[in-house]
């Protein structure tokens, strides 16, 4: 209903938009049937005033669906029209163009007739989720690395546009080209022109989406007040039915029924989804009851550290020394634990795997193993059982080492995929599809994303630059090496800090490759900053208030760079973005092994506090992360391009769905 209202409203907005002068007709159009899709013009209006109705979530009817789908293509012609100098003629042209595109994209076979949809599975998959389109688009783009990649590199700055464009192109070869008219239209319009327009559409759509979500949220709130927050798992399991059809590759047996369920789901989802999307509050370790409960379940031996830091009581502080051997000895006792997960857990605990990407990949691969070896127990459904299983593994991994936010995102993605498995799939097919999903996630979100980031960032390296980096970030390392390969002449300053001294490993690798390096400690950062021209930093996560959550010390480096007017570039894959907001480094953090503080590696003469470990007064605090406020950051380089830190919420909002649905 709300959606409808939104639509009505649209025309008005459109009026206001920059389009208006030459355009009186729009309102009339909107009223006309399919024309809802016409809203596209709306979408064109600047993001600010557009509350485009377009994207309001689930379509009620097929026709609605159609309209929605249409929306996405619409922008293309519209934009072109926009660009054209002649206003009057444009209009007509636009409309015309619009229709074809519409037909090309979705209208063609599947939507109009369910039967046809059944027929061509491949097709239906893409086209059926008309309202989905936008979110999917990103996925498509990413799934076709080659095309998307090039484009991005070409116009690095227009990330959004590129991104948007990709979807069009991608399906293009299969669908668009086939359904001739539209394709022709597209081609006639210069691609470049069409793209930016599209971007605009998405903006508008985004707006609409936001609106709708807000409304849904409000509604959900009203309903849900009584209910306790649903854990993400629960919600996920309950939901699977809703949207599965859209995503599934395999033909749906009863298309109509599916469609119905789809519709239903579509109607409801917003509320549930909203609830689910609110991340459950993190475990607070000063909450005695919960800690006790957690302990009973715990696999890893958790004895409270003796000298806990008062300020960080809300974080787990356990004795470290005994955990690893203890866990190792339990290897054969842990029945339910899959060996792959177990191995990864051990590696986390021992610190053999560190770095956000490495940990995330290791975890996902372990889950892949799990899924391969999985067989649904009798009288259980794969969806539920597997979700529960993954949940238990995750909590085991958390005991080994708290998850990073990027891993949280990955898990969310996986659970979503599981939840959305169509019931119709056989077990082997389901497993197959999950494994390929995981692979795709790793490839697109991490490996390819890194490549894109490297391309973007390397464009910011000039001859004669002095680049400073802190700690050891694998993306930054790739950037440096890539720029070096390109033959750029620059120096690297590696700033390091205790206790991990990760910079030394980086230093060794870079020097081995022939880069000119300077190595120093974080304390000397203000000494060395005079000569630095750019600062490249990695990040563990980027939060939606623009805060960068990263290896402890990053904030110091960024701060000093800011004070010396040196630009700070944060390199971070978009899957690490998180909608959470954090104001300081204390409320949420991770504590490392306190004993590492007492000993200075490689410095035998430093052992002042060794024998004091048991003193009550002395606490050793080994913080792992800190939060860099947004004002110190000049730019964030992501796989969607280079954005200012203030745009993080846009990326988060815009691509969250994509992350989940890939």
């Amino acid at each position, binding site marked *: 209903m709300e959606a409808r209202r939104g639509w009505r409203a649209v025309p008005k907005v459109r009026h206001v938009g920059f389009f208006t002068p030459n355009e009186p007709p729009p309102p009339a159009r909107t009223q006309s049937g399919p024309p809802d899709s016409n809203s596209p013009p709306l979408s064109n209006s600047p993001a600010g005033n557009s509350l485009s109705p377009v994207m309001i979530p689930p379509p009620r009817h097929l026709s609605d669906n159609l309209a929605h789908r249409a929306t996405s293509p619409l922008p293309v012609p519209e934009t072109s029209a926009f660009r054209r100098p002649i206003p009057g003629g444009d209009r007509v042209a636009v409309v015309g163009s619009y229709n074809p595109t519409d037909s090309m994209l979705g209208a063609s076979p599947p939507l109009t007739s369910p039967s046809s949809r059944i027929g061509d599975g491949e097709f239906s998959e893409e086209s059926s989720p008309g309202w989905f389109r936008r979110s999917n688009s990103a996925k498509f783009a990413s799934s076709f690395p080659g095309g998307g990649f090039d484009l991005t590199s070409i116009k690095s700055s227009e990330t959004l546009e590129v991104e948007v464009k990709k979807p069009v192109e991608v399906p293009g070869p299969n669908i668009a080209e086939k359904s001739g008219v539209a394709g022709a239209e597209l081609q006639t319009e210069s691609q470049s022109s069409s793209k930016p327009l599209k971007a605009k559409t998405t903006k508008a759509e985004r707006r609409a989406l936001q609106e709708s979500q807000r409304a849904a949220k409000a509604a959900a709130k009203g309903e849900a007040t009584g209910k306790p927050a649903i854990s993400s798992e629960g919600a996920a399991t309950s939901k699977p039915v809703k949207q599965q059809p859209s995503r599934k590759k395999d033909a749906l047996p009863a298309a109509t029924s599916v469609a119905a369920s789809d519709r239903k789901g579509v109607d409801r989802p917003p509320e549930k989804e909203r609830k689910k999307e609110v991340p459950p509050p993190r475990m607070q370790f000063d909450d005695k009851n919960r800690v006790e409960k957690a302990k009973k379940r715990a696999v890893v031996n958790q004895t409270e550290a003796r000298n806990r*830091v*008062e*300020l960080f009581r809300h974080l787990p502080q356990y004795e470290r020394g005994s955990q690893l051997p203890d866990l190792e000895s339990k290897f054969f006792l842990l029945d339910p634990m899959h060996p792959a997960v177990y191995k990864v857990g051990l590696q986390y605990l021992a610190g053999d795997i560190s770095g956000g990407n490495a940990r995330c990949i290791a975890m996902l691969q372990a889950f892949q193993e799990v899924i391969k070896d999985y067989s649904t127990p009798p009288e259980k459904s794969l969806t539920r059982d597997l979700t529960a299983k993954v949940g238990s593994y995750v909590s085991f991994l958390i005991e080994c080492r708290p998850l990073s936010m990027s891993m949280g995102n990955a898990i969310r993605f996986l659970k979503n995929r599981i939840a959305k498995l169509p019931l119709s799939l056989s077990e082997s097919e389901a497993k197959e599809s999950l494994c390929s999903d995981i692979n795709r996630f790793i490839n697109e979100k991490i490996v390819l994303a890194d490549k894109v980031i490297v391309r973007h960032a390397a464009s910011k390296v000039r001859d004669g630059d002095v680049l400073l980096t802190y700690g050891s970030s694998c993306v930054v390392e790739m950037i440096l090496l890539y720029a070096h390969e390109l033959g750029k002449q620059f120096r690297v300053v590696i700033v*390091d*800090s*205790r*206790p991990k001294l990760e910079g*030394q490993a980086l*230093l*060794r690798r870079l*020097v*081995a490759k*022939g*880069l*000119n*390096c*300077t*190595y*120093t*400690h*974080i*304390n*000397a*950062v*203000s*000494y*060395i900053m*005079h000569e630095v021209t750019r600062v490249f930093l990695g990040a563990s996560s980027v939060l939606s208030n623009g805060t960068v959550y990263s290896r*402890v*010390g990053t*904030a*110091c480096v960024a*701060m*000093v760079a800011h*004070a010396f007017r040196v630009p700070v570039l944060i390199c971070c894959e978009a899957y690490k973005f998180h909608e959470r907001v954090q104001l*300081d*480094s*204390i409320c949420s*953090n991770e504590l490392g092994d306190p004993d590492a*503080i*007492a000993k*200075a590696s*490689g*410095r035998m003469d*430093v052992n*002042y*506090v060794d024998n*004091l470990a048991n*003193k009550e*007064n*002395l*606490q*050793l*605090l*080994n*913080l792992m*992360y*800190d*939060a860099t406020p947004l004002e110190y950051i000049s730019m964030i380089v992501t796989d969607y391009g280079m954005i200012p830190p203030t745009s993080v919420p846009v990326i988060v909002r815009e691509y969250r769905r994509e992350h989940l649905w890939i």
Partner: protein
Amino acid sequence: MPDVQALVNDFLNKLKKRKIEGSQATSRQTAELLRSVISQQRVPYNNQAGALIDAVKAVGEQLIAANPVELAVGNIVRRVLHIIREEDLSLTTAAMAGLNLSAVSDDEDDEERDDLPVLSAAVVAAAARSTLRPPSLQTLLEDMPDSAAIPHTSSSGGDSEGKSKSADKSSRSRKLKHDVIEAVNELIQDITTCHEQIAEQAVEHIHQNEVILTLGSSRTVLEFLCAAKEKKRSFRVFVAEGAPRYQGHLLAKELVARGLQTTLITDSAVFAMISRVNMVIVGAHAVMANGGVIAPVGLNMVALAAQKHAVPFVVLAGSHKLCPLYPHNPEVLLNELRSPSELLDFGEFSDCLDFRSVTGSPLLHVVNPTFDYVPPSLLVCSSLTRCLELRWKENVDGEILEILAQFITSC
């Protein structure tokens, strides 16, 4: 004389080899050395002050050149010079007072006479001021009349004294040296007790339940915190370890031994923690004339973080650390690079440290500076031995520098 020379050489060696750690030790030893120089110096009849000043200057210049980064040496030399002039001045005034009585009766020189009353008035006033207060560092730093006048007076005093009896002369010369040595002793005393003097103020600045952050180790800071602890204040201290020297570990150890709640953190965690800190208290290497502070490496970062979170940044410094020089490019010129071995294990990195790289220049540089310069704009407030407005007129070259260093405690 020869043994003094030996002492001087020995000290020079120590300075050059950086064997002396910390400006307090340096300044104390400098003062002691200068004391022995003065005591060994044979004083001529005329112009004893001039002779002393020359001797001290000669030694002082060597000392300063031996370790230009250790500003405390220069400070102490200047201080001693100042003492000599001041003592000479006060003696002259005393003599002048006697002279004046006689001058009325026997006319000598018109010029002199014109000059004298004015001069003597100022001199007497100054002397009166300096005698009225207990002799201490504070009075030494007090506002003084133009020091250019001092050599003049001393010479004129010497001249006029030439006319007085020889017995008087010898006693006076001995008296000057004696006075100077006395005053230098006081200076040494002041330097050795500066910690306590600073620590006395601790209670005024640290209140209950405060959270204090410090970096590295400084005896002053240690005493300061302990003094507050002894006054039954309970507070907690975050100590950043101050890599690569890890002095923070030492400080933490001391603090723990004295029963303070101490948390040891890495330097990189400073920014993370500072949002929960009420005050940053650190030591300094030297305080420059513009109010900037030369401090152990890492403090600029801490000062920036403190400024960002509006946390008072307090620098504790004995007055021997006040330096009348203006810093010029202090990060480079007033800094020292220490051995890379503190950062990198040479054994481990021997392959990377190979200098026979393709281009002939090494690929790997290691930077390990000792000091940081904290510009005055970052000092939310800086607290000193004496929280005073200091006016300083001294210079090794006899050139007059008027320096106004204003330090205000406002926390």
